[in-house]
């Protein structure tokens, strides 16, 4: 556990040293400040817009961070040969994979916390309200992004960075489309084959509860438990497979 913690801290510090994160964060905050002051929304929907926009921005910004930080996390270390410095110490390859995941998760969490606090302040200043549903929806977006990080790290253990990032982007789009297509599938052979193929893509749509949260609704507890169970599977399995693949590499 100590080794995982050390790698996580190193990964987070390394990520915080990259200037690109601050540029993206600044851009996202500027957008919130600009649209928070925009007066082109009439008929009392400004609060809804701010919430929709803020949550969408969290999702997009999280995706950008996941694409920027994770796909090259292992591959770049291999190319630069810095991985040998780490593996020459008493560190297992599983520790490296899980440490990288936790480090990147911390960076994304810190960025989310900054954006969310600005967003919530703006909503409150504008006379709106922020309920538990809104905060839960934000947390679900964070969990969704962590699935992408986990898959990115898994891919990073064996696939070049650009291809890994492209696959993750495709998974983001397909994962959101999946729900609608699952409903279209019937019981015939072709549908069952499609169902099997789709089961290799995470159901990211399940983490999107914006439409409930912005209208002041409450996300059912049972649903949250189910989605949490689903999240654990989709985070642990790719990381575990990633560590197996890395273990088979002659490093």
């Amino acid at each position, binding site marked *: 556990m100590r080794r995982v913690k050390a790698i996580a801290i190193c990964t987070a510090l390394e990520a915080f040293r990259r200037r690109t994160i601050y540029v993206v964060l600044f851009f996202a905050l500027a957008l919130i400040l600009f649209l928070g002051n925009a007066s*082109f*929304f009439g*008929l*009392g929907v400004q609060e809804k817009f701010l919430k*929709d926009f803020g949550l969408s921005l969290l*999702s997009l910004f999280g995706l950008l961070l996941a694409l920027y930080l994770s796909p090259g996390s292992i591959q770049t270390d291999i190319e630069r040969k810095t991985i040998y410095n780490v593996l020459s110490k008493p560190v297992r390859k599983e520790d490296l994979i899980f440490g990288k995941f936790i480090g990147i998760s911390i960076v994304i969490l810190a960025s989310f916390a900054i954006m969310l606090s600005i967003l919530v302040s703006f909503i409150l200043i504008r006379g709106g309200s922020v309920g538990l549903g809104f905060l839960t929806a934000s947390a679900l977006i964070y969990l969704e992004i962590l699935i992408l990080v986990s898959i990115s790290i898994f891919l990073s253990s064996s696939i070049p960075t650009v291809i890994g990032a492209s696959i993750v982007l495709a998974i983001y789009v397909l994962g959101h489309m999946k729900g609608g297509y699952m409903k279209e599938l019937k019981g015939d052979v072709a549908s069952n084959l499609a169902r099997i193929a789709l089961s290799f893509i995470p159901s990211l749509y399940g983490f999107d509860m914006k439409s*409930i949260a912005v209208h002041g609704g409450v996300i*059912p507890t*049972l649903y949250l438990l189910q989605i949490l169970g689903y999240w654990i*599977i989709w985070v642990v399995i790719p990381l575990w497979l990633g560590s197996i693949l890395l273990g088979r590499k002659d490093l």
Partner: protein
Amino acid sequence: MSSKSHIVVIAIISSILISAVLEDEILWGRERAGIRDEVERTPMGVLLSMMGGLKELVADILWIKVDDYFHHHIDPSGKGATLLGEKDIMPIIRLQTWLDPHYVKAYVIGGWHLAFNLNRVPEGIRFLEEGKRFNPNEPLIWMELSRIYFFKLKDYAKARYCAVRAMRLSRDKDELASSLWLISRSYGKMGKEKEASFYEKALERVAGKGYVERSLREALEEAEREHEHEHGEHSR
């Protein structure tokens, strides 16, 4: 195959099976919560489904257009305020409700526009019924349905039924007063004077005497203020 490989294969298969079971539950849970994941079988529907988590944001951006349309009706030729292109706004409202079926205001405005401005009453009712399916506890949709039955179809029994539903779901004094007014007038039109008077008194208790006149006066004042504001902007 080594025993470690066996473990990996078994773990992957069992994870996929568990996640498949959970996935069905998630889909079902979303349906119960009124979240719409269906894909319309059109190129536009596929495009919308690709937007994934950004659908609601696009619905908001479309609302700017709807809001602008109902507030200004500006003729692009520059001849001043007109009602040209009255029908053009409906596809945008429709798209909005596809993107975000919880956008109650889009359903209410769309239903009202279809029934009262375009005189397509059955379509207006169908539109609001759809909104009701996704937002069963929303008094504004019941209220708009009641208005259509009352003013356009003169079906006072249905108008009363919808207004009663709106009254039970109302969240503030204004919503309660509007629904009480519709119930009272519906009973009046049905010839049930005793019930009409009962709800009239309830309305007076909730909103005070002269509620209708006051509401009309406030609406007129607001319209005048908006007109002056727009006029000022144009002259600038």
